[in-house]
Structure formats: C-alpha cells, structure tokens
C-alpha cells in the first residue's frame, strides 16, 4: 500500500508536536526525584523488566516483521515501537490492574533513561536487512543513495523529547498542585488529539483503513499483546509476586507512543515516513483498547492477592514493620502462601 499524499498535513504535524510536548510534559509532571531512587529499591523487578522491555519486545517486533513479511518501512516502524521505553499510561493501567505502581513508575523512569543507549543499538541490530531492502528499492527507483538508520537523529530526537519531561519535573518540584493539573490536562489532550488524528486520517485518506492489509493490523495489535503475555510469564518464571507480574506485563506491552511519533517525524523522511507513522498510529490506538481489556482482566484475577497484599502492607504501616500477619490455615491459596513475601513490602518472614 502506497501513500499518494502525505499522511499528515502540516497542521496535523503541529498538533502532533503539541500532543507529544504536552504528554511528555505531563509525564515529567508526574515524576519526582524520589522515583529515581525507587528504581534502586526494586533491583530484581527492574532487571526482569529491563530484560522483557529491551530483550523480549524488540525480538517480538522483529519476529512479527519476518513472520508477516512486512514491507520494510512497516518493519522498521514496528521494530522502532518494540525498542521504545515504557509509557506513562502504563502507570495508570498498573494502578487499576492492581499491580505495583511503584515498580511501574520505576521501570518507566529507568527505561526512558536507558533508551538513549539501548534504542540505537537495538535498531542497528534488528533493522539491518530492512534498511538494505529500502536501499535496493531506492536504487531501482533511482531516487538516491544508500538508506541508513539515522542514529544521530534518533538520539537527538530522544533528547529533545526529554526536554519537556525535565520541564514537567521542574514544575512538579515547584508546585505539585499545578503539576497535577498539567498531568490530567495532558492526558485529556492526548486523547483528543489522538482521536482527531485518527478521525482526519480516516476522513482524508478514505479507505485507508480498508486498504491496510490484515498483516499490518495484526502486527500492530500483537506486538502489544505479546509484550503483555511474555512480560507476565517471564516475571512469573522468576517467581516475582503477582503485583509485580502484573506491573511488568503492562509495562512491557505499553510503549511510549509519543516518542515514536517524535522520532519518526524528526528522523525519517518520505516515502517511508507516512507508512511508519501510520503503523505507530495504529499501535497507539489499539494498545489503549487491548490494555484496557487486559487491565480489566488483571483487576479481576488479581483481586484476592491484591487484597491480601494491601492488608498485610497496611498492618505493617500501622502496627510496625515487625508485625507479621498470619492468615488462617487454608485461607491463602498455594500460589500466594508459598510466596515468601506474599507480595508485600517489607518482606514478612513466614514460618
């Protein structure tokens, strides 16, 4: 499928830029220096999260590109999405999925910083054959020189997106109440702009949604789903407690879409820019829907262990760290009673 015109008009690009700015500003407004310190408190969770975010996700994205035999521009786009750091919305989803919000925030923070290093490496590693394909195509068309992944530009874009984050953090530091306003407003604006972009894309490129091959839809949807699934299994394999499993699962699947938009707009040119952008839009749209359902599901299955965790934690908060909660025999299912921490912090010693 070819884009005969640009996917986004200049006005849309401006809107998109505003959205990226405000979302990243809102992300910053939700962060404090303490969040960086929390990273150190969950070394195991962060490590496993790191493995699933920068190990599993790019690999799945690459596998999907191969499996569905995606055109190179889409392939690069999906790999780019796979390599992104976690998004702020994951914190909100983790909260409602009864996962560990602290871990989710810590993972978002850590991955955003680490992305500066990891993204260029991973992109270089996974996109090699697709860039070659593009170069060949361009050669045939006679439209130019060799195509390479613009690593420098990507790093520059990443740094650029981190500027509003820093500004947001500064606001939070100065005035938490204003920061809270900024955060909610940003979330709301994000939704409006996304809806507008989808709406206009649909209206102007009538039939674009119909023309898009199923393989593109499937890969846009499944990259997130695979992230949820394997993030969950991986943390389960490492015997993390259920609240961490849910947080890591959502954190792995939910990527920072706005960063993808920024990188695509700033680092890639037509003819592949529109195609890449379209996949990023599809991913951002579907991830909201899939993570909503996953969250509802986690909320339901996690109800019991979360209540146990919460109750135990509150006992420690009110009765002192040394207080040990013994639930009656047979009350806790094996899954939780075998977990030495019962998912709680501080760790409770069991006999």
């Amino acid at each position, binding site marked *: 499928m070819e884009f005969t015109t640009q996917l986004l008009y200049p006005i849309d690009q401006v809107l998109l830029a505003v959205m990226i700015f405000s979302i990243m500003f809102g992300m910053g407004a939700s962060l404090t220096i303490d969040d960086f310190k929390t990273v150190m408190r969950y070394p195991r969770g962060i490590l496993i999260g790191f493995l699933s975010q920068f190990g599993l996700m790019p690999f799945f994205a690459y596998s999907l590109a191969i499996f569905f035999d995606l055109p190179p521009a889409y392939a690069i786009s999906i790999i780019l999405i796979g390599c992104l750091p976690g998004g702020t919305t994951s914190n*909100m989803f983790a*909260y*409602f999925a009864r996962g560990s919000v602290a871990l989710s925030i810590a993972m978002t923070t850590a991955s955003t910083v680490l992305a500066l290093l990891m993204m260029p490496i991973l992109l270089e590693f996974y996109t090699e054959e697709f860039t070659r394909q593009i170069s060949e195509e361009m050669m045939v068309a006679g439209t130019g020189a060799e195509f390479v992944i613009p690593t420098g530009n990507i790093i520059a874009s990443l740094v650029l997106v981190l500027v509003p984050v820093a500004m947001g953090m500064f606001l939070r530091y100065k005035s938490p*109440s*204003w920061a*809270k*306003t900024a955060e*909610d*407003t940003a*979330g*709301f604006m994000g*939704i409006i702009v996304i809806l507008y972009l989808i709406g206009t894309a649909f209206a102007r490129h009538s039939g674009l949604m119909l023309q898009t091959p199923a393989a593109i839809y499937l890969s846009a949807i499944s990259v997130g789903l695979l992230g949820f699934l394997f993030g969950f299994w991986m943390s389960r394999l490492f015997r993390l407690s259920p609240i961490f499993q849910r947080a890591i699962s959502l954190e792995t699947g939910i990527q920072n879409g706005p960063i993808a938009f920024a990188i695509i707009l700033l680092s890639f040119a037509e003819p592949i820019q529109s195609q890449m952008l379209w996949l990023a839009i599809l991913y951002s749209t579907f991830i909201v829907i899939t993570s*909503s359902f996953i969250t509802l599901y986690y909320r339901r299955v996690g109800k*019991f262990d979360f*209540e*146990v965790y*919460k*109750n135990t934690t*509150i*006992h420690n*908060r*009110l*009765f*002192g760290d040394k*207080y040990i*909660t*013994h*639930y*009656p025999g047979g*009350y806790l*299912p094996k899954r939780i009673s075998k977990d030495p921490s019962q998912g709680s912090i501080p760790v409770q010693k069991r006999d």
Partner: protein
Amino acid sequence: MMDNRILAENLAELYREAAVRYESLPAFATRKAELDWHPVSFRDLYEQGLALATGLIRLGVKAREHIGLFGDNRYEWILADYGTQLCGAVDVPRGRDITEDEMIYIINHAQIKVAFVETRVMLRQVEKLKKDLPKLKEVILLDPNAEAPKGVHRLQDIIKKGAELRARGDRRAEERIRNIKADDLFTLIYTSGTTGTPKGVMLSHANMMSQVKVIPISLTCTDRVLSILPIWHIFERVFEVFTISCGVCTYYSNVRNLADDLSNVEPTFMGSAPRLWESLHQRILKRVNEAHPMRRLLFHTAYFLSRQYKNSLFFLFGRELRLKPASVAKRVLLSPLHFLRWLIVTPFYGFFNVAVLEPVRMSAGGSLKATISGGGALPVEIDRFFNYVGIPVLEGYGMTETSPVIAVRLEDHIVIGTVGPALAHTEIRIMNLETGDVIYPNPKELHEGRGQRGEIWIKGPQVMKGYYREPEKTRETIRNGWLNTGDLGMITFNNCLKILGRSKATIVLLSGENLEPSPIEMRLTQSPFIEHCMVAGQDKKHIGALIVPSLEGFRSHGTEAKNLQELVDNPEVKKIIQSEIKKMISVSNGYKRFELLQDFRLVGKDFVVGDELTNLHKMKRHVITDKYAALIEEMYPADNSKAG
C-alpha cells in the same frame, strides 16, 4: 475464598469460634498516633475475655444478670462486652454523654448490681449519685491509666484475678457459655428515643445472630472497617459482631482524625450516619471549588459523564427509583436510546473515571468497596453524589428495636432514593394510617399496594423481645408479632423500601393538611448558613422554623462572630437566611403552597447531643418544642391576622 462468616447460636460461641479460626489476626485496633496503632488478636481478645468473665463470676455476677457498661469507643469497652457475654450476662450500654437522671433511671430500672464505668469523670458522677443507686454494688473502672479510688475495681485487676483462677483450672466461664440459650438477652439498650423516658430494648442472642446470618455484605479477613459511630449504638454493635464473624479488623477512629485515618487505614468498608457523608461531600466540593479552573472543569466533566453512564445503566438494569408502574412501551422505546448513550459515553467515562474520579475516591481512602449509611435519612443529592463518584453508598434502614437492620441496599443492585429490599426472612407491611388496613402486600390493591404510602410494620427474627418491664409499651409497639416502626414509607415498583418520614413527626396544619417536616429540614440544612433547623406548626395555620445559624458557614462568608448569640443579633444574618429559605423552599422547587415557610426564628444556642439531639444527632422534637415554646409561639401571634 469468599464470604465464610461464622454462624453460631450465641455471641459467646461466636467469639470462641472466631478465636479458633482467626487466631492471631487482628480483631480490633486502636490509635496511639497517626501511624502507630495497637492491634489485639482474636485469640488474645478471647483469652482476656474469658479471664474477665471468670473475674466477674468471682465478683458474684450471675448468668443473665444485667451489667452496666457506661463509656465510649475504646478497646476496653470491647473487652468488657466479651467478658459479659462469656459469663452469660447481659450488658446495658450507654455513652459518656449520659445525664444524671438517665443514669439513675437506667441503673435502677435495669436492676444493675455491677457496672463498668469508663473514666474518672464518669466515676465521680456515679459516686455523687450513690444514694440514689441503692442496688449498685460493684463498679469497675475501664480506663487503664486512671487511678481507682478505694472500693472501685480496676478492669486489669479483675482480669488478673480471673486469669489466676483459670490457671488453677477454673472452667466456670465455659460452663456459663454452654448454658446460654438462643432466647437469652445479650444486651439491654436504653433508647433515649425522640420521645419520652428511656425504654430498655431487650435484644436476644437469636436476634443478633439472625442479623449476622443474612446481612447482604461480603467481608473477609483481608477487609478493614473504620469505625466512628458510638460503640454502644446498635448500628455499630451489629458491625462489631458481624466483623468478628467475618474475621475483619475494626479500626477505631474519631471525627477529629477521620481524614488522616481514612488515608492511613484505607478502609474497605465503613458504616456511618448521614452526617459523615454530608461533611465528606462538603469537603470534596470545597476542594474542587478551590482548585484550578482547569481541574474544576475536568471534575465537572467527569461527574457529568458518570451521571450519564450510570443513569443509563440504572435504566437498563431496572435500578432507577420507580414510584410509578413501568410502562412496557416506554421501556421498549427508551432502552435502545439508553443503550446508545451508554455506548457513546463509556470510553470517555472510562478515561475520566480513571484520571479524575479516582483521586476523588482517594479522599475516602480509595479502597472502599461500599459503605453503609444508617441511623437517619441520607439527603438524596449526597446519595447521588457518592454513587456517581463511585463510592457505593448502601443506605440501610433499621432501629434499635430490630437489632437493627430491616432493609439495606444490595451491593450489586443499588436503587438510589430507597433503602433497598427487606432483609431475608423479614416481612414488611405498609399500613393505612387512618383505617389500619394493610396496603402492601395486598392483592386487592392496585399493583398489590406498591407506590402507596403508609406506616411501616415489620416482622422477622430481628424483632426485639420487648421493652424491659414495660409490657404496656411493648403491646403498643408489637402486635401479633408485627412491630410498628413509626415511620412512613412505600414499596417501589422494583420492590425496594422508600422511607418518607416519621409518621409521628407529621405536622397536621389547622387546615387539615399533613406535611412531613424532615424533607424541608433536610433541604434547609444543606445551606452552609444553617446548622440545624426544626419545622413547627402542628395545629397552626402555617408552618414556621427554628433555625440555628452556622458559625462556620458565616465565617467563611466573611461574617465573624464570637458566638451564636452575636450572629442571631446581627440583622444581616437574618436577611441572608431569609433569602436562603426563599431560594430553597419555593413552589417552583416543587414544594406545595402549605409547605412554604411563612416565618422563622433564629436560635442563639446550638442544639447539643444529650439535650436537643439524640446520640445519632436526630432532633428530639418534643424537647425542642418545649424548650423553645415561647419562640415558636412568637411566630403565631394570637390574633393570627398576619398569618396565611
């Protein structure tokens, strides 16, 4: 594992079973400091209770004897209750605000020989009245930090003696427990009531256990209940027993620390009187109004969406307030529209619910699954507010005489504006006030009597045995097993009970028109300027009101005053309240002409608990009417020329 509440024949057995099943889990927790609470486990509580019971037996307490229990919320109160139940005795509770007259009346009327007294202050009160209390032999001081004068026992000493006896093999307490019959009393609660002298309500173990069995709320040992109601009030006591049965820990809070405790304890369940919801509602609104305009807009958008979303859901699931029979055609026509609205609103509601309403819920701890409001009518605006915001308020209905729950909304079927369906095994009748005929359930009436108002009568396992030593009053209240609640109500078309006021508070005007004062009073007290308000006008040409202005309300309005009298003397205050009344109670607001307030008088002294108010802040109309008779008469000049 869901609800596995313990069912037993009597309270003592329940306490024993709970100790066996829940062991070291905390049963009750008391606050030492904001983040320093003291828990007591089910096992320790039971052990201490047994020791206390043995100590009481040693003191000469017989099975089924009445033991006074005077004091307010503290752990030792619970312990005293445990001790009383475990030695097969009956407690007669009353709060710290008991007046001297009441104390003399209750101790003598209930023939109390042994009494627990909470504080030194109360102890002094008892000693002062000694000559009027000839039967009272032993007094036990609850407060562990207070010195006991000669001749007064300290709770910890009695427990210590009991524990020593038990260590030597004393098992008299166990024997007492075995001999408790389901029909024996567990408590004798004297109601200050809104009318007349205190009456001793006799409640049996079977009464209480029937409640534990059918209360339609699911709690487990991972739940936390925050308690702020008076510990001896029946509404709180049913929770005490119910939480013990479910293995839930109760955390004792108080009005002053409530905001902190809500966020530290993060309760999953709470029972409280409407006042708490009113003040929480005002606090939330205040915070919203002081917030940045953008946030205010977000909140109002969220609230609007939630209202659309929930109203459609209520309609689709038949959970709207149905006072008229439902027309099938209307339902068929409207259902697709509601479904469509639901479909459109849902994604937006989803976002706003998460981003805006959740922080609002956090101000109530954020973990509340549901809350019960009882002990008075919850204003419908406040009811709606909390349900739309996502804190399900289950309004319940009951009275001391029914230990106490008669009806309560179901968690998954909340019908706003009602108190839900009757509890299991409870029958409700709506009776015609004039003829005494049964309106509901009556197959001869239209729709079996639904939607028609009348007096509520109930029958069920929770109905008291009677008033202690008052056969006459008992016969007046209970006829053929049916108890007259003295409330007006109707059954809605989705089989919920709607309360419409007190049948006895009904004001009959000279013109013969009947009106309910409480809806008007409730409306007026929502004004920030009005603290209390009582409508009067029995046998008069028109109604009038006594109003206690709100010091705080006028202060935030900019009118400073040292005391109420200063406010009352301020002509500006009178003007403001006059315009508030005009604004709130008018024909265009749906009030009938004879419900309009023609006159009012400001009262320069606050209504206080124990005098004008009952312990649950209900107005004692007869007390207020007597006390301010002159002021009321002022509104009705003898010539009556200005009236009407």
